[in-house]
């Protein structure tokens, strides 16, 4: 589209898209999110087009590249619409089969479908797959259904009707009130009610009589998290419309998206979407032909975790070192360029258009608590999590707030694989806490997670099984934070480093009497005196594991033993007499040739030579290798 | 009546403040020092310091050109 569109054109555009699609027998939605692209998603799309042409079907089937479906572990994915047949893990050679058997032959290809990892049953359709059944899509409402580079597709799914209504009614105050009543709380970690933040921003702008900015935080520094990237890749217009709505509400005419450098595909899509929105008169001067103007510029972050913190982000945007500052004076009053600045997370922005389209009550109807009069009073709506670690189905899931951890891990995630048992789930990114099995029935929302010594964070969820050492986990996250601390304030800089030294010492078997008290004391000071929330939340992994898995620490210190068999200096491998059949399968793989034994006789490990790599443990089919 | 800088006579009224006098004389320079009789008035108190009738007020401008 190159001409500005007027308000009454939205329906025409939607109708045109639908009419265009109706010319086809169906559509082939090829996932072109980063995950599937890495697994040759682009190639699959090209081959599909080629094959359709070969078979002369190009006028019957429309191939659409979409954003991430959230189930990257089984990518590349192709969904055949309108039936919704879900094909996964496609190889280039599978495309021919798909075309000839399904499209030509009319018979869906079972061997390319998803199987239930437990029962082995075949799930032909997306909604049959347990990974998808409990999901409820708001922020990801368009994932897999539209071409993210096509503004018309977005409009055809109801896009920009919210902006049209809001601009027509022209009551910015009402927009803010609606967002407040919806109970929408920030998805970037803090869980601050978006409406309340907008209202303060607007007030500061009016009091000071100056510009105000809206900013989208797309820094997403949590390791393993990719919610925000996926939203941008699959539905960039949702973020752009959300920001435009926010700008209208608070009175901004300039906005910024701070996006990390490691997200090249998201950046490309974002830039294309911004250009298209500008060309359509939905961004820039005179939106919808009114006198409301709003422009969005992109700032690229170099990828420091701390730059996701609001004041560090604004320092980085201003060209200074990405270091936080004291927030006794809030960013909504003095933020970017010292002007009032409303910062929200990608997912927060993406939730704004549907709320204003369907109303606050609809949104507040999902989730926990009664947020109608007080947004602090619960957690409404849905939340996108990146579910990783020891679960069968890893990926991106959007579930209603208040769903239990058990439902997410067992139903959506399909439970812990390989016959192991669940031990803990770490939520909230590197500075979240570890929640043990005893709390699996806890509803997931902002306040319950905080109460348990963890946090929502931006939605990372790492599942751990019984082969995970919790001291090692704490050490891992603390080390991450030692590297990512900006180093500005003393407790975070020196305190985390000290925590890391003590944890390492414990893992190495040199833990001392008094170490746990020292850990707790340092955690306390780091938590209470750090300048920003990186330091403020950094002790969580240590404190939560100390709380729920203290015995593991004690075993390390007093018995010099790692119960999970992870900390190398504390474990030894041994071959058990009755189980070992003398098959010799372990001999070759052992990197240090530590295993000897005659054929058909019990083998032995030379403890001097063994470097505790665990390979023999993995290869032995008879469970004859024991780790202690 | 009050006298400012031994130069300007300004009619006195109930509740007249230092700030009122400055406004009246259009004294808006940043580096000024105000005294009422012998007493120094801090800038924060201009608005709530009242000027007594018959008082000699000085408004001293600290400026010496470029």
């Amino acid at each position, binding site marked *: 589209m190159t001409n500005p569109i007027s308000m009454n054109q939205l329906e025409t555009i939607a109708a045109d898209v639908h009419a265009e699609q109706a010319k086809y027998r169906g559509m082939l939605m090829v996932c072109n999110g980063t995950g599937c692209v890495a697994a040759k998603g682009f190639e699959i799309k090209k081959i599909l087009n080629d094959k359709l042409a070969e078979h002369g079907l190009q006028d019957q089937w429309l191939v659409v590249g979409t954003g991430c479906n959230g189930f990257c572990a089984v990518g590349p994915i192709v969904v055949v619409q309108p039936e919704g047949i879900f094909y996964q893990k496609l190889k280039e050679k599978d495309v021919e089969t798909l075309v000839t058997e399904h499209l030509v032959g009319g018979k869906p290809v079972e061997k390319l479908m998803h199987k239930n990892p437990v029962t082995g049953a075949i799930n032909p359709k997306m909604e049959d797959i347990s990974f998808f059944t409990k999901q409820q899509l708001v922020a990801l409402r368009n994932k897999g259904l539209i071409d993210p580079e096509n503004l018309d597709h977005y409009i055809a799914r109801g896009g920009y009707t919210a902006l049209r209504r809001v601009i027509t009614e022209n009551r910015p105050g009402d927009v803010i009130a609606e967002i407040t009543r919806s109970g929408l709380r920030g998805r970037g970690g803090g869980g601050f009610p978006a409406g309340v933040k907008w209202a303060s921003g607007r007030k500061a702008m009016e009091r000071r009589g100056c510009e105000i900015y809206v900013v989208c935080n797309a820094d997403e520094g949590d390791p393993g998290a990719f919610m925000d990237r996926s939203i941008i890749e699959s539905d960039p217009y949702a973020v752009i419309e959300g920001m435009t709505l926010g700008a209208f509400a608070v009175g901004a005419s300039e906005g910024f998206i701070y996006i990390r450098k490691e997200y090249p595909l998201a950046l490309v899509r974002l830039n294309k979407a911004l250009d298209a929105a500008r060309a359509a008169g939905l961004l820039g001067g005179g939106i919808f032909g009114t006198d409301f103007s709003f422009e969005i510029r992109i700032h690229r972050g170099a990828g420091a975790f701390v730059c996701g913190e609001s004041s560090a982000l604004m320092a980085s945007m201003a060209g200074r070192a990405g270091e936080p500052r004291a927030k006794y004076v809030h960013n909504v009053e003095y933020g970017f360029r010292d002007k009032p600045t409303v910062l929200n997370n990608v997912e927060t922005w993406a939730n704004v258009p549907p709320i204003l389209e369907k109303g606050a009550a609809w949104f507040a109807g999902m989730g926990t608590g009664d947020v109608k009069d007080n947004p602090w009073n619960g957690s409404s709506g849905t939340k996108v999590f990146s579910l990783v670690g020891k679960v069968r189905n890893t990926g991106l899931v959007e579930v209603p707030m208040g769903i239990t951890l058990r439902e997410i891990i067992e139903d959506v995630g399909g439970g812990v694989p390989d016959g192991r048992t669940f031990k803990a789930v770490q939520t909230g990114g590197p500075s979240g806490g570890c929640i043990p099995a005893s709390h699996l029935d806890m509803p997931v929302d902002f306040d319950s997670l905080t109460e348990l010594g963890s946090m929502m964070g931006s939605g990372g969820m790492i599942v751990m099984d019984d082969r995970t050492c919790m001291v090692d986990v704490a050490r891992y996250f603390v080390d991450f934070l*030692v590297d990512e601390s900006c180093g500005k304030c003393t407790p975070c800089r020196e305190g*985390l480093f000290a925590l890391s030294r003590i944890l390492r010492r414990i893992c190495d078997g040199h833990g001392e009497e008094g170490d746990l008290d020292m850990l707790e004391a340092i955690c306390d000071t780091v938590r*209470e005196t*750090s300048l920003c929330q990186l330091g403020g939340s950094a002790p969580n992994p240590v404190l939560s594991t100390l709380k729920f898995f203290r015995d593991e620490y004690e075993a390390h210190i007093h018995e010099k033993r790692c119960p999970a068999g992870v900390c190398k200096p504390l474990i030894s491998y041994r071959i058990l007499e009755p189980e070992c059949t003398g098959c010799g399968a372990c001999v070759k793989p052992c990197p240090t040739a530590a295993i000897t034994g005659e054929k058909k006789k019990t083998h032995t490990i030379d403890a001097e030579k063994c470097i505790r790599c665990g390979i023999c443990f993995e290869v032995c089919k008879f469970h004859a290798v024991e780790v202690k | 009546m009050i006298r400012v800088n031994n130069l300007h006579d300004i009619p006195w009224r109930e509740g007249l403040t230092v700030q009122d006098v400055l406004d009246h004389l259009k004294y808006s320079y940043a580096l000024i020092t105000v005294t009422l009789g012998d007493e*120094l008035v801090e800038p924060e108190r201009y608005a709530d310091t009242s000027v007594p009738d018959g008082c000699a007020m000085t408004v001293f401008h*600290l400026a010496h050109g*470029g």
Partner: protein
Amino acid sequence: MAPEKIDITINDKKVTVLEDSMLIKAVIGAGIALPTLCYHKDLTPNGTCRLCVCEIEIKGKKRLVTACNYPVRQEMTVWTSSERVQKHRKLLAQMYLGRWPNVPVIQDVARRCGVTDGAAFASDLTDPNPKACILCGHCVKACDEFIQERILDFAGRGILRHLTMPFGESDPHCIGCTSCAHVCPTGAIQIIDDTNHPVDPDMIRRHGMKVNAEMATLDKNQCCMREVGTANIVEVMDRYDLLPVHNYKFGQHPDTYKVDSQVLRKKYFTQNNPDACWFGCSMSCAKAVDGFELKTGPYKGHRVTVDGPEYETVGACTNMGCFDPDFIVEFNFYCDTYGIDIISAGTGMAFVMECFEAGVITTADTGGLELRFGACDEVLECIHQMSRGEGFGVEVGQGVRQLKEKWIREGRGDAQFIRDIGMEVKGLEYSEYVPKESLAQQAGYAMAVKGPQHDEAWLIFMDMVNNQIPSFEDKAEALYYFPLWRTWFGLHGLCKIVWNDVAPADNKKYAPQQAAKIPEHVDNYFKFFEGMTGEKLDEEKMLAQSARVHNLQRLMSVLFGFGTRAEDTPPYRSLGPVTEEEYLSRAERYDGQLRSVLGLDPEKMTLDEKRATLRTHRESQYQKVMDAAYARRGWSQNGIPTKARLRELGIDLPELLALAAD
């Protein structure tokens, strides 16, 4: 608006603080000491050591805050060393000791927190150097806030944080101002070379840092020199009827808002740069306009950096009736580029314009240029002609005195009128203040040795507004002290601006007469002198040093024929209203003077009578002020230094004595 006052309780003690002031100020004010390692009273808070942590309670909610950067905004109770606070401080002190065990400031702070051992935090990063950098950040802030250079900053994340210059190299942009070393609490930054070999570098530094601190903390609430330079007074002069408009006819103009310092700040001046005349000046009032696109002349279309505009430049333009800021910047650029003095150009053009409007000259003389007040394009064309040595520009370039004489010689218009409005003395054009209502400044201008420049004396506010120097003796005293004091700066290559374009916060503790001298700043200069030369200086010595030069300068002026009473007499425009229009524009003022000073009834006089009477009065007043000033300076009534005065000053060269009066 004045900030609110807020009552807070600190350790059971009630104190009142100003809204938004930092909590630490209140704590220190209450006589309570806090351990700190990153707080410096003259720098904005770093808030990084966290040692100043205090516990506060607001509406029943308790929390910890760092006092150094917590702005007080509501009533609260504060505990500066609750158990919770002490516990954290102890641990923080241990962290510091563990990393830098031998740094005296750390040992001292730790002791105050009740800690002497940091072994628990010892690691392979422990640095035994007693002069180690402890990452307090003072140097970084000093480099930025004192002199706006930003040469130093931290690099490395987390535990790898360290102080560095860009790319870890010694940065050639470091100007060696030593601010960083001065504020470093550990001696980690050391000065290895004082290039000018002063006798007592530390004395110079201590007093220089005082100026730095005032600039960093006070300027933004005083004159905003860093943001807008001397242009800050454009609107001030307008408000006090002192901004020259239309060749000094008036002191105000309704369009001044188009060219005032707010406009320059918002649209023109580059901010936060060390735009100073010389390296290390923390005032940096020079200012610059970057990327300005020229519309005329040989560089038309080029984007250039323009040094300025400062106050005089704007005043020169308002004097020509030009209230277009783009014009001002362009005029500024071309005067600089052509090597034309902006003040002479502006005052000269203003004279030409008034002559044009009065019909003394016409387009036949100007080569077709309609040189009315406000004719921006024509002014620029004239300047370009001047540079090319062509046309009417060449004539204007001769200066006001030459033009006056020529036009009078050629019998154009009324000779008296031309003499009255040609604003020059000794052949030099006036600088850009209207001196009409300040007798002292009329003399300050016209008696200045080099011509009507205010760099000997600027007494307008002292005289006209403050009424500090009412008698002829008072004025004479000011005309004695200030020229000598100001001459002294020039003699030592020091700048006048840091003397009085920022004032110490407590300068008001002095009586106005004293306050006008800004005694602490005068002392700074004395200390600079002493630190450099080793010789103690006081006011008397300073005046003696200066008087020798000032008198010599005057003798030179005598030698060249300018050092006489006649040459110290200004054109009437400097003393009072020349034209009817001018009188009528301030009729209330002038009528009032006739009434109160001369006891006349202006109602009963014609306008011509009133003008003539006022003129006679003002001219005679001027003669009296000259008499008094000559006497105070030890000069004859013809304005020539006497032999006695020269001997008193130790000047005994016969050639000089020969020039002197008896």
